[in-house]
């Protein structure tokens, strides 16, 4: 449901009119609109923004690990409309799997591979679900909060 103070917001209201059940929350902070979307509806919402609201560009897809909260991952999409000069941020909280946005925005391909590589979130339906940054035989997902910054497997001074 859309919070009271955001009924006036054009984008949020337009989405609420079409997919009222998809909105899990909405907030405007620092002049940026953030819409929390139910993970099951993310593709429909992305499609809505692309086809009906002229958001031609997917700027980036990334994730935030809220460990130890559950569900721990927030998948964050930044969209831009060049035509209307607008930006919007979509967020979906998932435990470890979400539908791939590559069918809607081709640019999602590498960004989702990066999130899979560094966070271990699986994007179902991704055309090439492989690691992109780390070596193929790497164990673990480095950007998770419970992955240590230093001292993975061996510490300084020791031979690997």
């Amino acid at each position, binding site marked *: 449901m859309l919070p009271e103070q955001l009924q006036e917001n054009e984008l949020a209201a337009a989405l609420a009119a079409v997919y009222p059940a998809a909105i899990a929350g909405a907030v405007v*902070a620092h002049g940026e609109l953030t819409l929390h979307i139910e993970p099951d509806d993310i593709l429909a919402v992305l499609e809505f923004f692309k086809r009906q609201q002229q958001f031609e560009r997917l*700027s980036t897809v*990334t994730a935030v690990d809220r460990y130890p909260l559950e569900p721990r991952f927030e998948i964050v999409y930044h969209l831009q409309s060049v035509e209307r000069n607008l*930006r919007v941020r979509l967020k979906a909280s998932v435990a470890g799997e979400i539908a791939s946005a590559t069918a809607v925005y081709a*640019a999602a391909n*590498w960004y989702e591979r990066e999130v899979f590589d560094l966070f271990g979130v699986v994007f179902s339906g991704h055309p090439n679900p492989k690691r992109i*940054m780390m070596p193929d035989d790497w164990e673990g997902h480095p950007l998770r*909060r419970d992955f240590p*910054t230093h001292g993975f497997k061996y510490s300084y001074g020791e031979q690997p």
Partner: protein
Amino acid sequence: MSETITEPLLQQEPEAGATRRMTLNMGPQHPSTHGVLRVVLELDGEFIEKARPEIGYLHTGIEKQCEALNWQQVITLTDRVDYLANLSNNLCYSLAVEKLLGLEVPPKAQFLRVLLAELTRINSHLVWLGTHALDLGAMTMFFLTFREREDLLRIFEMFSGQRLMTSYIRPGGLALDPPRGWEKPVRAFLEDFPSKIDEYESLLNANPIWLQRTQGIGVLPVEEMLEIGITGPLIRAAGIPLDARKMTPYSSYEKFDFNVPTETGNDVFARYAVRMAEMRESLKIVKQALEGMPEGPTRAEAHRVVLPEREKMKTQMEALIYHFKIVTEGIAVPEGEVFQVVESPRGELGYYVVSDGSGKPLRVHMRTPSFGNLQGLPNLVEKRQISDSIAIMGSLDFVLGDCDR
């Protein structure tokens, strides 16, 4: 390439009469890849049937390290993301943190930031022009552009003490006051440089080899470019004035009078033309910044964010306490998240910064232009010749550190 190396790359024994495709590894040590990019090419004779960029060779976990450092220590990492546009990265991160803090930066610092960001753009374009022309066989350009780049690096050194890893723009303002007489070398550069751009163009614009290798090469429909995430001079060479400096002005760019150069050619030559025009526009902005430079401090009055001056620390107890608190605990940035976008020389540079209210960032994600642009490489080079792919890769102007982070 010797027979022993090519044999395992052949996919399978072809049937009689069928064409045979060859798989070729370009890079990770190929000179035209400017860093460690590996492109796996599937070739049909001279033509590229399929291209698969393999990145990650320069992945250094900068985003992970950001989470282990204080807010102000992260600045030194942002330098190392894009080592040709370090001040753009400093600026983007600082703006993001200032947005979270709700901090207003003094006008003089804002103007100096604009001035430095534009000099960075010229610096980056000079490296691009030199190496791009070198790839296509024009060796002289490399020496000429690096001659002018040296002047710029001296200017950066004068401001910050460093030629490359400047860390000069910090949350709350600038690291140091500019040194006395800093205008002089900047003015000298402004007077000197327009004739240098003319010199570059006189060498290239009528050069038949340059024109043959760039005109009509690397054309991609503009919708496909937007779809795949290409930004910066590439999208502007396709006629779309996508520029964060105009669309969402930051650091008082709205006070400057400049154009966003666009071309309609959409080929390698149009990208060259856009970048040359951008250097001229940047000069215009630097000139305006110099002439309209406001008086005043270069750091905000925010004791909990900006380190106190050295002199004050020796005489005032409070200054010493704040210094100790900032250095040991980090700046306390309020809880929240922002996505700050600036126009880096390569395109849209965005920092997505999340704070949980502590002295360290919860998450710093860099939306880097090289990553976005490089994703479009297969679309640009497929069905074209290998030699064209060198020109196209040069026109992308990627920095692998920026891509892999």
